[in-house]
């Protein structure tokens, strides 16, 4: 195998696949990075068996040559050293060559590295996913769906299924739901061109976080295909394959109150700042509790109290209050996460009592729901 490649392209590709490579893995060869050279381009692969990422660098794209003098072949290199080497090479191009004894030479300008490679034949084959049952969507929309939900997944292994995001595609609607059982985030978007449907698939939150990091806004569409244990996200330069979580995602829709007793409308940023200030005195060991109380005259009061530190009170004018008076305590952290995830100027919050979940939505929009369970104080 041999090729000469633009160093910037190689760095970007290596960075992407490194997201999937872990130094602690059951299959030793997965600590390595696979390079495969074909006449049409170079494919880099990294995997930790939960997530696998392939990054493709075409030999020529938009009449710009990325890779030259390609002699086909493949090799696996130690991921511990290769990325740093590539990043620190002196010239704009890099020549990579491997011989029959799995010795790899990396040249750039006057620098030359000789590394021991591993046989690419031993690298596990990634499962091939049928791409017929797939649908496409804009990358920026997928990224925003991930950002609006994934923060709410559980980090506890108590209920492993809750460490993932539940993804549904039904009636031309794509829905993401995440909950750690203390709050729930959901987002729904219409999908027009889908020729497939699925409901109970759960993608690990970690996979979606990594995907969000490496998806390039510059590219336009992502194609998504699902089998019963894998999901593939595919763009022109990237294949991102993730394992799905086993098990049934709990039905959450019936747990979400559909009527409300108190409804407030408020400017997102103002509420966020007020809660953020009050949270300064809310201790993490105490669920970060802040209190919200309606005051009439379109005023609410946000307070927090830690006996050994002090207390804070802030009154806030809001757009409107409808319904019963209310006093409720909740985690400021969950509230801040939720308000940050809603990228709209104004929100409505529907309360149904101090012991029941409340729901935050953008004004006049039900496609985003952020639900939070209150804290019962004594």
């Amino acid at each position, binding site marked *: 195998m041999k090729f000469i490649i633009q160093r910037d392209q190689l760095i970007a590709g290596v960075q992407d696949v490194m997201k999937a490579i872990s130094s602690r893995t059951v299959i030793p060869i997965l600590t390595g990075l696979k390079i495969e050279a074909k006449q049409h381009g170079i494919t880099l692969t990294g995997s930790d068996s939960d997530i696998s990422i392939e990054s493709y660098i075409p030999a020529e794209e938009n009449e710009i040559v990325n890779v030259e003098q390609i002699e086909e072949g493949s090799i696996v290199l130690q991921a511990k050293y290769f990325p740093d080497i590539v990043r620190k090479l002196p010239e704009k191009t890099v020549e990579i060559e491997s011989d029959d004894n799995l010795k790899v030479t990396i040249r750039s300008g006057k620098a030359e590295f000789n590394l021991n490679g591993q046989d690419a034949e031993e690298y596990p084959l990634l499962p091939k996913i049928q791409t017929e049952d797939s649908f496409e969507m804009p990358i920026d929309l997928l990224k925003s769906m991930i950002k609006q939900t994934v923060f709410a997944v559980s980090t506890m292994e108590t209920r492993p299924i809750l460490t993932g995001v539940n993804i549904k595609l039904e009636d031309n609607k794509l829905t993401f739901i995440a909950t750690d059982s203390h709050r729930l985030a959901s987002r729904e978007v219409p999908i027009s061109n889908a020729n497939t449907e699925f409901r109970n698939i759960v993608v690990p939150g970690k996979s979606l976080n990594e995907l969000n990091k490496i998806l390039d806004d510059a590219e336009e569409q992502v194609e998504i295909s699902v089998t019963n244990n894998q999901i593939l996200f595919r763009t022109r330069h990237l294949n991102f394959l993730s394992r799905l979580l086993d098990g049934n995602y709990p039905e959450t829709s019936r747990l979400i109150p559909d009527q409300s007793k108190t409804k407030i409308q408020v400017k997102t940023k103002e509420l966020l700042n007020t809660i953020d200030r009050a949270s300064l005195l809310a201790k993490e060991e*105490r669920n970060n509790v802040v209190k919200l109380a309606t005051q009439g005259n379109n005023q609410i009061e946000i307070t927090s109290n830690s006996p050994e530190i002090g207390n804070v009170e802030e009154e806030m004018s809001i757009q409107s209050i409808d319904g019963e008076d209310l006093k409720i305590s909740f985690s400021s952290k969950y509230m801040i996460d939720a308000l940050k995830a809603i990228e709209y100027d104004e929100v409505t919050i529907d309360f149904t009592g101090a012991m029941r979940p409340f729901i935050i939505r953008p004004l006049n929009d039900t496609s985003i729901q952020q639900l939070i369970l209150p804290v019962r104080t004594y």
Partner: protein
Amino acid sequence: MIKANAKKSRVIFHIDMNCFYASVEMAYNPKLKGKPLAIAGNPEERKGIIVTSSYEARSKGVKTTMNIWQAKKLCPELIVMRPNFDRYREASREIFKILSEITPYVQPVSIDEGYMDVTSSNMDGTPIELAINLQQRILNELDIPCSIGIAPNKFLAKMASDMKKPLGITVLRKRELSKTLWPLKVEEMYGVGEKTAEKLNTIDIYTIGDLAKKDPYQLKQLLGINGERLKNRANGIDTRPVDPDAIYEFKSIGSSQTMPEDTTDLIVIQRLLKQLAENVERRMKRKDAAGKSIQIMIRYHDRNTITRSKKLQSFIEEKEDIYRLADELFQKHWSGEPVRLLGISVQDVEEKRNIGQQLDLFTYEKVASKENLYSTIETLTEKYGKNPFKKWSPGDKKDDIQPRTSFQKDFLDDYKR
């Protein structure tokens, strides 16, 4: 919160019961008096190590932490008894009751020792006379000997009570330290363990006097902040107040136990972890507390000990959660070597009334259905101050929630009542 005045010249007592468990047993059964007596864990098992012994046994070379057969070899007529923690707790409670009649500034440190700040107590006579009366009273009423150290601060009082046993009363004055304290070997200083002593020896500190005179910078380099603290103590400086509330403050609640024999058997290990989780749950229930991080301790056959902990997203209090998380940590960090001792502790502990209960999406209906009840309680609480109701739980019987080990201080929570 009451705290004793830490500024002006103080008079601090450190009261230390002599061979406490053995003394209590002798008070129960006077026939044991004058005989070599040892209290040991489980006499049938290896964890049957000597917890304490009478002076008669000590004179034959019997020492705490020896195992039973070693001790029997040194002293064949040794009488070995299992510990009766209920008796010790009862005796301890009585002792602290006597102390708290003299001053409210009593700080229990463990089942058999505590500090008192008698600076502003109404005393007929000198502190020494007060100490003599106190010692006599505990001996007459409870038949338990103690030693008392008298000094201007806690550290010196502690060192003083250790100087004369049994039934000693020792005064340590700051101006006499060069004669009284400084000639002692540095490892005899309270707060200096074997490891620290070894380290101090490397910079030519062998006596407490050497430590008192050492360059603080060098000490700080060797021992960090503790170096400075130790030097101060060696010079008789210790500003810590006697804090009667110290026993109410808890940051962690834990339980640990030695295995009957070193083991690599996961079933045995998990059985112990379950048992420890139960202990921890019981103690958390006593304090009505929940915690937000968990730590395990593994001591291997070679005494090599590791602790590993994990911060949690939400509060835990149930034994199932404690066990599951402890087991998770164990599986992740166990080297596979034979295990001698295991411990679990829940940390970042708070009283439940301070934290509130984060409701759960899947179970909130249960709580919400009692909303009317709760809001009534809240109204009454606002009216009367503290919540006038206490939740009745079926496990709330006395035997169920009694502490099980010697060094737990839970039982002291209510010695004033």
